[in-house]
């Protein structure tokens, strides 16, 4: 009986969460239409765009660090692979030669262009989607190759090895000899970017600049949540809790670690592609290990082992650093005008203090190991207890 009731209530809560997600997407869609770039609130859209990139990156890192217990620091590397794959395969042929000004571009193929030649405007969207998925697949493939030797290592050793690989990837992508493909250390630009995403129906223009990245992140995060709640996700958690016991219960450690590592890197690649389309440039020097630490910080702030925590953590992080605390760098903050104190760099000082306070008062991060849905459940349980 217990299982029956449970499955019914879990089905109910999953419908409820789906509804919430749809409402959120609808709000983003409406904001996208109504806030023009000249508006003061346009910052909100920027935060939503960048926040969704980081949210996906943080959730995919959490899958590895929080759910499988593999402390890996190679995320920036896989995001870089994703960003470059996406950029290379969406640069239109007309712009190739200006982008690759010092090299003879080797890849002269663009998904959006090829598909739109066949299918019209719908082909462009399909082309972008294909490039995003390809970005994930290439990142996952590299993760598989790196994982073969590296996943035998444990804890700190794994972290150092993955960190090293991420730096190697960055160095290789900047290598002049690979210039015809990666444009050497120069940046890639002119590819399909979010600021250009719109739908034209007759005379009305529907802006999709924020909606598209938010949608991609939402779908990806839902897939990760599904994975975590599946029988494989439970196996990951058992590896995190006790590897020896997991192996003794018939869980193939090498195989499951590899699954977690490649899936995590797939979504890191997707988030890298999203980052390229949001920033409208892709440059290897942006994907330093500092980026990995930023993402790790979001995961820790949100709570290791909580997906909603990672999402909340990354949106708060992006909002604070890009929007709310901007004034600390530019002279005026909360109406106080003090250019002597509030000048370049002061934002980071305040930001570090805030992070320290959060870490001190929320030892487990904002959410701990709970999810948002658990909060509702707890309240219900308490209400039931009170009724009794």
């Amino acid at each position, binding site marked *: 009986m*217990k*299982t029956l009731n449970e*499955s019914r209530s879990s089905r109910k809560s999953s419908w409820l969460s789906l509804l919430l997600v749809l409402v959120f997407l609808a709000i983003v869609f409406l904001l996208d239409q109504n806030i023009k770039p000249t508006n003061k609130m346009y910052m909100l859209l920027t935060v939503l765009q960048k926040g969704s990139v980081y949210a996906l990156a943080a959730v995919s890192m959490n899958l590895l660090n929080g759910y499988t217990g593999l402390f890996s620091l190679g995320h920036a590397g896989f995001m870089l692979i994703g960003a470059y794959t996406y950029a290379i395969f969406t640069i239109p042929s007309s712009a190739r030669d200006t982008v690759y000004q010092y090299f003879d571009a080797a890849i002269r193929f663009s998904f959006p262009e090829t598909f739109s030649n066949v299918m019209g405007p719908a082909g462009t969207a399909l082309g972008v989607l294909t490039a995003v998925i390809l970005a994930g697949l290439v990142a996952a493939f590299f993760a598989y190759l790196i994982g073969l030797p590296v996943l035998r290592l444990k804890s700190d050793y794994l972290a150092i090895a993955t960190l090293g690989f991420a730096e190697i990837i960055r160095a290789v992508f900047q290598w002049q000899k690979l210039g015809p493909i990666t444009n050497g250390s120069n940046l890639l630009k002119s590819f399909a970017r979010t600021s250009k995403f719109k739908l034209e129906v007759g005379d009305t223009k529907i802006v999709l600049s924020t909606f598209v990245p938010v949608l991609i992140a939402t779908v990806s995060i839902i*897939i990760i949540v*599904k*994975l975590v709640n*599946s*029988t*494989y996700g*439970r*196996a990951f*958690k*058992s590896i*995190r*809790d*006790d590897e*020896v*016991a*997991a*192996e*003794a*219960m*018939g*869980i*193939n*450690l090498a195989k499951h670690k590899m*699954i977690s590592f490649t*899936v995590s890197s797939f979504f890191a690649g997707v988030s890298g592609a999203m980052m390229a389309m949001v920033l409208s440039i892709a440059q290897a020097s942006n994907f330093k290990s500092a980026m990995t630490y930023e993402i790790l910080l979001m995961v820790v702030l949100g709570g290791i*082992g909580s997906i909603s925590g990672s999402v909340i953590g990354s949106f708060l992080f992006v909002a604070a650093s890009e929007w709310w605390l901007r004034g600390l760098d530019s002279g005026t903050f909360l109406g106080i005008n003090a250019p002597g104190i509030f000048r370049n760099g002061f934002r980071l000082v305040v930001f570090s203090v805030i992070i320290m306070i959060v870490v001190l008062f929320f030892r487990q991060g904002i959410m701990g*190991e709970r999810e948002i849905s658990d909060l509702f459940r707890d309240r219900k349980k308490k209400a039931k207890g009170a009724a009794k």
Partner: protein
Amino acid sequence: MRKDKPCVLKVEDVTMQFGGVVAVNNFSMEEYEGEIVAIIGPNGAGKTTAFNVITGVYAPTNGRVTFNGERVIENFPRGKMKKAYLGQNAGKYTEHLEPTPDKLTALGMARTFQNIRLWKSMTVFENVLIAKHLKRTSNVFSATFGLNRLEEQMQREEADALIETVGLADVRDELATSLPYGKQRRLEIARALATEPKLLLLDEPAAGMNPQETVELTRFIGEIRDQFHVSILLIEHHMDLVMDISERIYVLDFGSMIASGTPAEIQQNEKVIDAYLGVTDDA
């Protein structure tokens, strides 16, 4: 001895040497279907090492393990060990088979640990449910996209049924580590049973238990054998428990087997008495 039944586990000439120390020396044993067999011996006799060899944690230096008629583990002194080997029967085995513990579990060997190793952040139900992962047929994609709903439902029902059978239904949703010691043991055994084993290996199941709990555990082990049709191999210090439930006993001392037989035979065996009580030099 139930020689009429098929042999579940056959250990032949297993030697485990760490550097210059021979922890297990030429150990051989057999277990037949439905039997409860115990390995006993004083501290440091090599019981747990033998156990770890059988479950695939260590590769033996020399020897062979056959499980259900299938050769699963085999090794011979190789590399540096070639010269350093101090044991017997070198050259008798020529193959190198070294499966990881999860492969042996998949074949039908499940174990518990001396120092309980439950998954700490999970409830009783989840602990049993995860052990069901071994019997899955879905791959990672079908599991993620919810195409294995029937299997998922089955896993949950089987886990619940198992929890009911071992008498943990009242603590189903409690954290595994919040249970009293005796129940944690019970849960660990339930988790091992969830992998549907043919042979259950218990590493000191009564370690740290009070007499009352030990009596309950003794009864529980007997019930499991009859209910789940498993053979049981256990290592134990508690003589009461061993003498009560095991049908045959192997006694190890300083890595070598010094006796084997029924509990009655073992109790009379002078070598065993000496090993346990010590021999005075002038005797």
